[in-house]
């Protein structure tokens, strides 16, 4: 599974520019599905036929957070805006990868005091990307205004723990791919690799309308509580199993989804955690509110340093998520 995760996380596809990741995911699943559709917003929806007339939809978003080039000065320095939740603090000392070129991020300041002050009150007005261009013209050839970029950060294998950019939510994509490959579904099984989650759950809100599933589950990362002086009001630990989400700040999981996943995990001896996330949300919030309402929930993977260039997960959590979702897909029982 690590190889797949590496391939997916190292592909560059910020929100609204998901072409490459969609092609790679499609190559992975195409021999294991009964049909597919790429909808008008770019969501990839694949399906496997089951034996019942109910539909299960699993969703993982394939976009990652990024930046947008909006201005280039006469010396060739590029100004950027964030696409999704990129903190300027995570850009300082980092590299940004545009389609044709990589750049480093610098901070404005005439004196040491200026730099200190700007660092303290950092925002996108105070930083710039330097691609080593001599002037505006040279920079604009490589990074035309309106170009999208992502963090440039490698994949590191630390054994059980792995680190990369874009673990959010390529880990969900990897879990969904492996579930599609392995599952022999009882209910009709739809997998959606959705677009533009990071800017506002755009893709998922139309996927659910299109498919109209009986149950929908978002597979996404969540945050963590197991680092020095980490949050005490919630419990999310790496390696303790996938998290069955009960609540976050965007949705409350349908009780039936929570109970079904928990019962399955118990009966199959799959480790799991119960998740209450103080701040954050997933595509489930959009899925739940679609059309006349859809029974929805989220299965999440604890992930340290979310939205930084170096997101860490435990690969056992991903493996166990696949086991749990495969069990759900194969259970010879009506969904609700």
């Amino acid at each position, binding site marked *: 599974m690590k190889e797949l995760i590496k391939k997916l996380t190292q592909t560059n*596809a910020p*929100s*609204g*520019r998901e*072409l*490459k990741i969609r092609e790679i995911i499609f190559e992975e699943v195409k021999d294991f599905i009964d049909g597919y559709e790429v*909808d*008008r*917003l770019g*969501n990839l929806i694949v399906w496997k036929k089951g034996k019942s007339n109910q539909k299960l939809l699993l969703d993982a978003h394939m976009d990652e957070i990024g930046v*947008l080039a*909006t*201005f280039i*000065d006469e010396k060739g320095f590029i*100004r950027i*805006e*964030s*696409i999704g939740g990129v903190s300027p603090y995570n850009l300082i000392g980092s590299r940004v990868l545009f*389609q044709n070129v990589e750049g480093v991020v610098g901070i404005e300041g005439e004196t040491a005091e200026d730099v200190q002050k700007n660092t303290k009150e950092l925002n996108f*007005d105070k930083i710039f990307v330097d691609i080593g261009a001599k002037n505006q013209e040279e920079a604009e050839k490589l990074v035309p*205004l*309106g170009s*999208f970029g992502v963090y440039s950060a490698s994949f590191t294998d630390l054994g059980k723990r792995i680190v990369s950019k874009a673990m959010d939510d390529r880990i969900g994509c990897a879990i969904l791919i492996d579930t599609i490959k392995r599952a022999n579904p009882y209910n009709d099984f739809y997998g959606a690799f959705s677009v*533009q989650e990071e*800017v*506002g759950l*755009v*893709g998922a*809100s*139309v996927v659910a*309308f*299109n498919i109209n599933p009986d149950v929908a589950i978002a597979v996404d990362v969540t945050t963590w509580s197991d680092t020095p002086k980490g949050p005490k009001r919630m419990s999310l630990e790496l390696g303790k199993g996938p998290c069955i989400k009960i609540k976050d700040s965007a949705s409350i999981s349908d009780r039936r989804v929570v109970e079904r996943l928990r019962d399955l995990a118990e009966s199959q001896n799959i480790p799991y955690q119960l998740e209450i996330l103080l701040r954050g949300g997933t595509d489930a919030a959009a899925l739940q509110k679609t059309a006349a309402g859809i029974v929805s929930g989220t299965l999440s993977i604890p992930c340290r340093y979310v939205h930084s260039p170096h997101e860490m997960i435990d690969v056992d959590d991903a493996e166990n998520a696949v086991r749990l979702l495969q069990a759900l897909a194969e259970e010879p029982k009506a969904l609700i």
Partner: protein
Amino acid sequence: MNNLYLKELTELNGVSGYERRVREFIKEKIKDRVSGMEEDILGNLIAWKEGKNSKKLMLCAHMDEVGFMVSNIEEDGKLSIIPIGGIDPRTIIGKKVLIGEKEIPGVIGYKAIHLQRGEELTPPSFENIKIDIGVNKKTDAENKVKIGDFVAFATKSTVNGDWASGKALDDRGGCSILIDLIEDNIGLFYTTYFVFSTQEELGLRGAGVAAEKISPDFAVVVETTTSGDNPEFPEARRSTELGRGPAISPAHSGYVIDEKLFYWMLDNAKENNILYQIKRRTVGGTDARRIATTLAGIPSAVISIPSRYIHSPMSVLNLKDYENTLRLIATSLTKEVKDERTY
């Protein structure tokens, strides 16, 4: 002909939810020049013209403007107001307004500087801003206005060379562009729906409903957007600048603009040497987010006329920008949207 009706359009009162006057005006101007026209339940005006291709393209400009609503009539005949849409109270003191269907004149009042004690630096709040309609008694006021009446700025539009000023340029500028596009007999590639939408300023309320009814293959929102070319802003952080052509948005709040539509407009601008600019800020949203997430998804784009001081009693735009916006949209409407994704 272009900007035939811009001046008249900005002088009409159409605060969100009360767009009737704007709608009736537009209806009258376009009725003989479209293949069909209808008004929906939320008050959106939808007109269409056939194109070479039966696929549907929806153009959308919102008719509503920011303003106020009378929320109470005080004992002394002054009117309490609530803002309709985003308005900075510092921009409205001492301005003339028109109230309700009878367009009763009034002035937005606040205590004179002589009576302020070190409060000059505190922005006034809507708690203590009142409208004065020239009466001293509640009963006299009640004969003229009612709770729930709309309040619109009473600004006359002026044109000075290439510069036009007026209230409600956001988004009568867009409405005017759509009317001009209907007026000019363009060889439309797609069957084109011209939507004049309602209640955008209160949260994109009208456009989604219109999109659901039309179910277009793509949509382009025609807006009037913030400029930010004030001297205190560094060039890099100006959202747009006047005189540099239409602003094409790559992304905004809640939605990354559809890639093929973005390049459709950009390429048409380049090929036809039409001055354009890429919008430098992504804050703020438009009807595009609402339309994009309608039904099973409708790819959307945004093109805007840059404008200074929007959401205030007086905004300014450059008529050359208006012309270039019109030209760019008119040229693009004759061309197919190519599906060549790059990234």
